[in-house]
């Protein structure tokens, strides 16, 4: 999974728009024509500085989200009930690490090293999807994550896979293929609880209630408040607006929740038959920003665990380092 649809902005947009003005106008228009024709941009191509910067940020945050996203579900690796669930969960969390690997590689083609990206994650400079700052309290939480968070991620990733940057699209193609397994195994485990004993059902309903708001947050603030850049859309960095993706998610998955006799904690949630769009209570966006800025229940633990892993593995990496070797970034 897990490119949260929301790209976290750094407060220096202005400065960069100036930087933008230094791009050669002739090259810029050739670049934009190329994208308009549906061509992909490859690592060696000329690209506007702002395009490069935004892509690094997008792909890097996506990569962080994968390896941090492995943690809430990893919580249940040692407790998954039965062989099939146990193996599927390990394989799924493993895939998420694999997605991180693919995405860091894609970002590296733009000139930022994996080490630099990891450092920005550890220092808090670079964000990851907010949804992973919430705890997975019970086994039912894992099924909600596997089914619905992965589903949300798929909506986002399928859109991004049509973007303009070749290496990112190629990584997403592979990722989307694996996500279909995540979604299926999550849905299967979800249905098992929904159709199980009263206790299993209650456990699932409770998890669903707790995860609904983070899921609604997943695609980012509503279009009316987020100044989503026309440029990013034109450059095919951002492929769909937050509200569009949220609506698409609701359209595909709310019926799949309701058909199992489960409820969602939003009395206003319904599809408007006239407009064809979903209506819902606006989730608490102050809470969203509070959690992004470190105030969530698990922010500290997530980074502490990542730091532990980097520290614990350092001797292995250092022992095998070969400083004399000619190094380079990925080529494609």
């Amino acid at each position, binding site marked *: 999974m897990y490119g949260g649809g929301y790209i976290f902005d750094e407060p220096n947009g202005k400065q960069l728009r100036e930087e933008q003005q230094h791009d050669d106008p002739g090259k810029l228009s050739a670049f934009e024509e190329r994208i308009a024709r549906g061509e992909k941009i490859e690592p060696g191509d000329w690209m506007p500085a702002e395009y490069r910067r935004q892509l690094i940020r997008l792909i890097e945050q996506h990569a962080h989200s994968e390896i941090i996203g492995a943690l809430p579900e990893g919580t249940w690796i*040692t407790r998954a009930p039965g062989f099939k669930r146990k193996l599927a969960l390990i394989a799924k969390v*493993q895939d998420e690490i694999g997605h991180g*690997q693919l995405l860091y590689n894609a970002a590296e083609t733009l000139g930022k090293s994996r080490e630099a990206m990891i450092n920005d994650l550890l220092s808090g400079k670079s964000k990851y999807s907010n949804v992973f700052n919430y705890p997975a309290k019970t086994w039912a939480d894992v099924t909600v994550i596997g089914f619905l968070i992965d589903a949300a991620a798929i909506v986002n990733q399928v859109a991004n896979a049509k973007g303009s940057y070749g290496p990112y699209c190629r990584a997403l193609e592979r990722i989307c293929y694996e996500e279909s397994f995540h979604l299926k195994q999550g849905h299967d485990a979800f249905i098992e609880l929904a159709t199980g004993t009263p206790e*299993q059902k209650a456990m699932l309903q409770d998890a669903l209630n707790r995860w609904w708001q983070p899921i609604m947050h997943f695609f980012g603030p509503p279009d009316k408040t987020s100044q989503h850049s026309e440029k990013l859309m034109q450059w095919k960095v951002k492929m769909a607006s937050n509200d569009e993706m949220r609506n698409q998610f609701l359209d595909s998955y709310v019926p799949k929740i309701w058909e199992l006799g489960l409820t969602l904690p939003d009395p206003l949630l319904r599809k408007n038959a006239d407009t064809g769009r979903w209506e819902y209570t606006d989730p608490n966006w102050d809470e969203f920003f509070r959690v992004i800025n470190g105030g969530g229940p698990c922010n500290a633990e997530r980074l502490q665990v990542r730091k532990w892993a980097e520290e614990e593995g350092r001797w292995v*990496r250092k022992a*095998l380092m070969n400083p004399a070797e000619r190094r380079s970034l990925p080529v494609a």
Partner: protein
Amino acid sequence: MSSNAALTDLIIKMADDELVLGHRNSEWTGLGPVMEEDIAFSSMAQDKIGHAWALYRILHENLGGEDPDRFAFMRPESAFKCAHLVEMPNGGYDFSLIRHFLFDHAETVRYESLQDSSFEPFQLLSKKVKGELKYHTLHANAFIIQLSKASEEGYARMQTALNDTIALAAGIFEPSAAHEEELIAEKVYPGEKALYHRWLDRIYPVLVKASLNLPDMETITPVYGGRQGFHTTHLAPLLKEMGEVFNLDTEASW
């Protein structure tokens, strides 16, 4: 054909080792030293749990044993027959790697010996897992050799971990007075002693390549007991955790 009791005993030992070590190794998933290795180590953990599952299925389908999930997730600690080696907490990556190296070579010689077992399900299984085990030992050998040769710290860590682990690993080959002779006579497998020597023949050249010193095997005391149901204090909490969700309702489907 050898008796069900003897076969059952052997299968439970093998399967419990695989399950408990696979479980331990899966604790690294998401926390490994570098993403590429995280992925590789996780696959090998999955393979082990998969081997355990396959063995419990043989028990279930051929020898009248219980359903694999119930057998694995509900049995009391004393009914487990795993070696102490696999019960130990992960510790650092050095211990985990050495354990992986020592165990997977033991696993390899064991499955190889089953290729012409008189018990047909063993033959089929050993064919199926052959390629997986080849990768596991390739991975283990590469890491052991490279880490030992790369730096002083790498070498020291590997040698220390080897010294600390070898007696536990030798415990994999704990003999069984009750059943072993029968299994050897019936050509089910060649027995623990034979496997132990084949294992030493496998690990020794790798250790030489790594310039690591194999402790004098005459002087170490293999850690036995696991095969008889006597375990370290680490196993009970592991099993409790593993069965936590399953045992919320053992009649429910999860």
